[in-house]
Structures are given as C-alpha cells and as structure tokens.
C-alpha cells in the first residue's frame, strides 16, 4: 500500500509515495538516487548506512522510511555542500582513512554525529567519570566509532597472511 512521505535530504525537499516496507536507506538509494549512504549488511551490524536524521546518527537500514516522515536527513554528500569538503572530509583524506572507500560515507556521518554527541558531553562506556567532561581520547574515539565496521581495516594483515601461506607452501 502506498503512503506519502516527505523528506529533506542534503538540503533538498522530496515528496514521494512509498510502500510500508521501504527502509529509509532504500528510499534514499533506490527512490531518490542518493547513493552516498551505502548498504552493507542491511541488519544494523556494519554502519555503512549511517546518516544523520534531524542531526542524530542512525542506521538507515533499520529505520522504516515512514517513521521519519518530515525529517531532515543528512548524508556524507550533504556534509560537503557543492563539493566543498568539510574539516572531517579533509581529515579523512589527509590520513588516508580508507581503502576501497565503501564504508567511508557512513564513517564520516558517524564521526560527525559522534563529535556532536561528545560536544554535548554525552558519555560513552569507556568514559571513566560519568559526570565529568568528555575528552576525546583515542580510546573514546574507538569506542564511539565502533558501530562502523570497515572490511578493509585488516588489509595489511590479510596481505601478510597470504604472503606467509604462499611462503610456507613453496
């Protein structure tokens, strides 16, 4: 059954008719052609589909589109309006924080959401003093980014393993 849905995506307004089963991720990619959010696992386990909904990071694959009728959605594209890269985008580039880049839009959105959460002083499970100010140590960043899995992350280790196996079977 068709339902009318209104979304603002990366600053652009859209009205469309969707089936009740449509997820926010599928609405973005398959209906609106917004390809920045990626479909990895489709079950909330990898974070590739992370977008900001009304400023908060969410897994768009586990969100029914209709639940977010009227929402403002920001993808990694929208965080770089007219190709103008944000500080976050530039930092990812400068530090070569990707291999294939598939998980990168989700990583960028998650990082943007996480930085805002930390700026709001929201604690994480590794925050020692729950009432104290949040300081973004490496451990804090790791914990807060842990919902985004990068399948390329083990790249060097895979190479080493294959090399070792090749050497051992020679």
């Amino acid at each position, binding site marked *: *059954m068709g*339902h009318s849905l209104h979304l603002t995506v990366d600053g652009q307004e859209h009205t469309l008719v969707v*089936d*009740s*089963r449509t*997820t926010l991720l599928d609405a973005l990619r398959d209906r609106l052609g917004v390809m920045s959010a990626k479909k990895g696992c*489709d*079950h*909330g386990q990898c*974070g590739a589909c*992370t977008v900001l909904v009304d400023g*908060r*990071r*969410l*897994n768009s694959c*586990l*969100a*029914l589109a*209709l*639940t977010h*009728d009227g929402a403002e959605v920001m993808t990694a594209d929208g965080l770089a309006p007219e190709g103008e890269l944000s500080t976050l985008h530039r930092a990812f580039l400068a530090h070569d924080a990707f291999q294939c880049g598939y998980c990168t839009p989700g990583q960028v959105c*998650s990082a943007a*959401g*996480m930085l805002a*959460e930390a700026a*709001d*002083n*929201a*604690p*994480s*499970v590794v*925050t020692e003093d*729950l*009432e104290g100010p949040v300081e973004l140590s490496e451990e804090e960043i*790791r*914990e*807060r*980014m*842990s*919902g*985004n899995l990068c399948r390329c992350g083990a790249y060097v280790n895979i190479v080493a393993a294959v090399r070792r196996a090749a050497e051992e079977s020679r």
Partner: protein
Amino acid sequence: MNPFDYERAADAAGAVTTVTDRPDAVFLAGGTNLVDHLKLGVAEPGLVVDINRLELTEVEALDDGGLRIGAMVRNSDAAADPRIRRDYPMLARALLSGASGQLRNAATMGGNLLQRTRCVYFQDTSTPCNKREPGAGCSAIGGYTRYHAILGASADCVATHPSDMAVALAALDATVVVLGATGERRIPVTELHRLPGDRPEQDTVLEHGELITALELPPPRPGASTYRKIRDRASYAFALVSVAARVDVDTAGRAPVIREAAIALGGVAHKPWRARAAEAVLRGAEPTAETFLAAADAELEAAEPLDGNRFKVQMTRGAICTLLAELTGVPEALPESTTEDTHE
C-alpha cells in the same frame, strides 16, 4: 518482507486499542529489532503501529525521589541524562555498553526491554525453533551454544535475553508501567520476562496489545554500583556474561560488614537473572574474597551449562568476584579455574 499495513499512533490509548483489536498487529518503536525481524521473516505482522510520535519521551523526577523514564526515551538520551548518570550509574553504563552509538540513538527503553533473543537459530527461519514455532524443536540444543543459557533453561529452549539495560534495571528493582485495554498495571521488571519452561514462545507476561509507557526507578540506594560486560570483542557485541552490582558496606564497626547487596546477571538466562542466592550470602557478611566466592558459588550451584558454554560458569564466577572486589576495594583472590574452559 511480507506486506503489512502501517499506522501512526496519535496517542497511547489509541495505540493499545488498535493493537489489541488485531491479533496480527505489533508496535514499532525504534525498529532496531523489529525491522531486522521483518527482513528475516522472523516477524510477519499484518499491521505495524508506529508509536514514535507518542509523548512518552520525558525523564521526570518522582515525588519519592525516584525517576520515571518514558518508554520512548532513546537509549542514548537516557544514558546521557544527568540524573541517571549521577544516581544510577549502573544503568547509564549498561545502556552505553549495548549496541553502537547509532543504534542507541534509535533504540527505546520499551523496545530494549522487549527485544527478542539473539539465538542464531531463532533468527534463521530455515532451522527449527520452539520460540518461533511452538513444537518445532530446538536447534540450539546440541548445536552452537556459546551465547546460550546456563541458568533457568528448559528442555524446550536454552536462549538468553540479550538486553544489557534490563540487567541493570533488575538490580535496581525498577518497575515497568504498562497500559492495556482495561487500564494501567505495574510489573516489577524482574517479573516481566518469563523463563522458557514449555512455552518459550512467550517471552514476557505481557498480553497482546499491552503497551509499556514508562519505567520507574526507586530512589537511589546507598553503596557503590556499576555494570560490567564480558564479550568477544572490546565493543559492539552482545554479552557472554554481564553483572550489575551494588554493594553497601558498613564501615563503622571494627570489621566492615555488608549491609545490603543487589546483583543481577546478563547473558546467562532467558531473563535478566536476579542473583538472590548470592545476595543472601553477602548480606551481613564481611566483604572478603572468600565471601564473594561463596556468594557466586551459591548462585551458580544451580548452573546447568551446555557443551558449548561450560566456560561461562567460571566466567560468571570470576565476573561476580571481580566486580564485588572492585566495588568494595577488597583485594581479590580469584580461585584457580575449577571448570574446563571451552574456547570455540
């Protein structure tokens, strides 16, 4: 995914009526569990009633000094609430140790309590499972049981309840406020979930159509408390074993004495497991490594591990002892492993 009708509830009473009237209707909160199940074919409702616009989003102080948390408060917002961080750190830590930042932003208090087991066979519709299909048989028994129960299971189901938050709520003696077709009722959170028995398909004591509207926390109690989770990865994984504990030690006399202790365990049973046997041993005893071990053993006496999770008995014993030692400042003296560790 099967087709389903979709309705957005305008108020709590309307949501209850709509779901009560249709046996094939379900509530949708954050969707992080239900939408997953719609995709997997584990849930096949005819009507999804979206409760995201209900005004159940407040954290309010109660007259008695406790706290009322609306069912639609997001897990991340509850964990960041200054009163919860200050007065119920065990709950904040349990919430923060569940899932990921993105998921906690969507997950709600009500939905987290009612999330279903992560038993892999339950989620795989190609395998028999009594919880999904009563009478079908249990694929876990004799199968992969690393994440399964060591306490309170039955011959029909050995699944565990996956929520971290619920474990802290059990130790805090929280109350679940529920609205049904005939009015409101209040259920101690320790009595919300059922043990599987011969009806594992029934996770809780809730009737079809009953809506959780809030959780109530009693006034903060004295003592040191926290939540500790042991898992296969440093982050973003369900608990193998978890412990929520509060201990109140009287240090006025010559030797310190435990006035009161509250302990609940996660990852070990079909429900958040309130460790009353352990608490009874601790009450009135001197806080020593021996006392802690005796308390853990009193609780784990009833443990019936499966082939794939024997290691959890020792892991739970260790987790209880370590946490109690930490909370009381007593140097711990963990016993040598008495059970065989199974590493799969």
